[in-house]
């Protein structure tokens, strides 16, 4: 693997390009329907495509499973990822850095906004209990954490951030149907921009299992955390970002 920058999907032989695809089409199950499935597979780049399963569902819908080879090359050199651009610190180091550089407690306000009531994710980051064997931010002596819980409105959140003089606002969004998470985050970042002058705006950090971490700028936030985030990563990021800011200011 090492060194190679262009790779292909792997079924059982290097370079075979094999992938599996499934989808439903709003067509009855007949030869034409199977042809339609192969057409779609072709457009996705499967060539040859093997239609291995087709099953009629209800009236006029058919589910298909297709296997086949794609010609697409994956260029590892062109992969863009949100790389961790800060060192991972221990709790002790985080506390030390806050004490040294901020000379006061770092204030964090967290919430699930909109109608989202999935608190397990934000609780995993904030509550002492934590996740994956790591304690949450409440456990850090130099962090002051207010977890507002679920279904917090954007005005409530802005208000709490102001009252708490929040250095960072942490928002969780788990429900993604109809892009609810994207709408809510955009609304939130706009409100913070309106309510605070740029220099005093708290750091806006968003998390949830279905975010694209590359979208931070687009959504107007400072950072996005995805599936499997640990509290340590978040704490390290906060220290890094806030002290960088201070340095810049």
């Amino acid at each position: 693997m090492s060194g190679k920058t262009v790779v292909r999907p792997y079924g059982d032989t290097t370079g075979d390009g094999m992938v599996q695809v499934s989808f439903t089409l709003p067509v009855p199950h007949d030869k034409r329907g199977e042809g339609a499935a192969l057409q779609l597979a072709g457009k996705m780049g499967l060539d040859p495509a093997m239609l291995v399963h087709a099953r009629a569902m209800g009236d006029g819908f058919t589910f298909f499973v297709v296997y086949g080879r794609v010609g697409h090359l994956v260029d590892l050199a062109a992969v863009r990822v949100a790389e961790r651009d800060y060192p991972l610190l221990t709790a002790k180091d985080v506390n030390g850095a806050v004490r040294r550089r901020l000379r006061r407690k770092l204030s964090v306000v967290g919430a699930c906004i909109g109608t989202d009531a999935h608190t397990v994710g934000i609780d995993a980051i904030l509550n002492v209990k934590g996740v994956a064997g790591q304690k949450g931010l409440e456990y850090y002596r130099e962090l002051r954490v207010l977890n507002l819980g679920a279904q917090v409105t954007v005005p409530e959140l802005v208000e709490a951030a102001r009252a708490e003089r929040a250095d960072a606002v942490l928002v969780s969004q788990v429900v993604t149907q109809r892009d609810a998470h994207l709408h809510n985050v955009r609304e939130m970042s706009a409100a913070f921009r309106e309510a605070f002058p740029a220099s005093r705006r708290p750091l806006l950090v968003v998390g949830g299992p279905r975010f694209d971490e590359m979208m931070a700028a687009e959504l107007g936030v400072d950072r996005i955390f995805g599936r499997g985030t640990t509290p340590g990563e978040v704490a390290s990021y906060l220290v890094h970002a806030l002290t960088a800011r201070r340095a810049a200011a």
Partner: protein
Amino acid sequence: MGKLGLDPVTVARARALAAEAGRPVVELARSHTTVSVERAVLRLAGVAGADPDGIPWVNRLVDAVVADVGLGHGVALPVFDALLREGVDDVTLLAQKAAAGSVRFAVPDGRFRTAARRSADRHVRAGLRRIDRRRAERDRLVARCGDAPRRPWIYLIVATGDIFEDIPQAQAAARAGADVIAVIRSTGQSLLDYVPEGATREGFAGTYATQENFRLMRAALDETSAQLGRYVRLTNYASGLCMPEMAVLAGLERLDMMLNDSMYGILFRDINPVRTFVDQRFSRQVHARAGIVINTGEDNYLTTADAVEAAHTVTVSQLLNEYFAHEAGLADWQLGLGHAFEVDPDLPESFRLELAHALLARELFPDAPLKWMPPTRHMTGDVFRGNLLDGFFNLVGAMTGQGILLVGMMTEAVVTPWLSDRDIALQNVRYVLGAAGGLHEDFVPAPGGFIQRRADQVLREAVGLLERIASGSLLDAIGDGTFGIMRRPADRGKGLDGVAAHEPGYYNPAAHLLEVS
């Protein structure tokens, strides 16, 4: 005797403790009312529709009454007093007038009280009769179309957000074998302090529960039931700030089951505990009358708490839900007590732990249908593994005689169910029930073996917890995070401002008629 050899004395003690812990809460419910209870009464009395902004007339009317005389007397007497005084016949019309500010409300006295009460009773009785007719209609349709061919009933979720996408999907699911269709609500709805109106197409991760959506879906399923020769049941949610009204609308539109838990709203929607306990009691009285099966929400605890550590909290909650349900008039066959397959699949013997837990519920509540919920928390984006876990969940359901099998979806961790997910999930259920449905015959937990020991341990832990709760108070226990690790103090949470203690002379014609019956 059962397969677990449970000690009958311990079981009886658990029930007695649950009653002891629940009794003060029932007292609370009997001595308070809420805006939603009162709106539910008005819905029974015939108030329907909404203003041009979509605010239901029942809300406008209750708000007007509260503004004039407060909530503690109940709205029925002030409203019917005004009706008589204004000489209008239609309560909705009165609501419109009240909203326009052209009606004043007072608490009637003496013969005005008697007259108002008589009028209120008559109107509400008419509403209850509509509910009775829908119940009789259900019985007729079940007799005519035929019923689900076996237990467990196969329960499927539809959740597009758009009632007009939901309908064909629900019909397809029914044709593919679903016995029960649940239309999941939009994420925001349970915190709305009103019930939206009309057919809706814009929910998030669920479709708004409205009377019109209920009607549309029930009509569509009636059509499908007739085609299939099998009555397909419809479910929605009574939970949230409008629990009593939802119960009434469900009764009026012949829904067949309702999610209705005594504590879910408190724990998972941060609704005020008193508000919830008052609302749930009234809503359950309505369900009892409507012949609706309730589904409780113990499964949810295991999404925030650990399914092994917290197994006994499920049992405790089931016993409390049973007590509250019986007290509200529900019969055992109406108790779809919830529990779930949420033990970490990587834990050694996790499947046998599930068997022990599921069998414990089965044997503690032999006459309740029991709602068996699929794995959610330990589902991941690995959909292949997901379908496998769902299969083992189905197997536990079959081996322990669960009454209602909520079908798990391989995409649980990814999206609200797609059409194809439901089809794959139903195939899974069909395979397991068909191939291994009779396996309970050969499933005999070894005496003193792993399964019996585990069930016994959970039961003993449940009794221990009930003792603690009964010697303190249930409200305190909820405040302490006993259930689902959620701490919910009695003086916090949403909707508290919609609660009032009964004033002397409080009158609720519906409660009256329902208690009597």
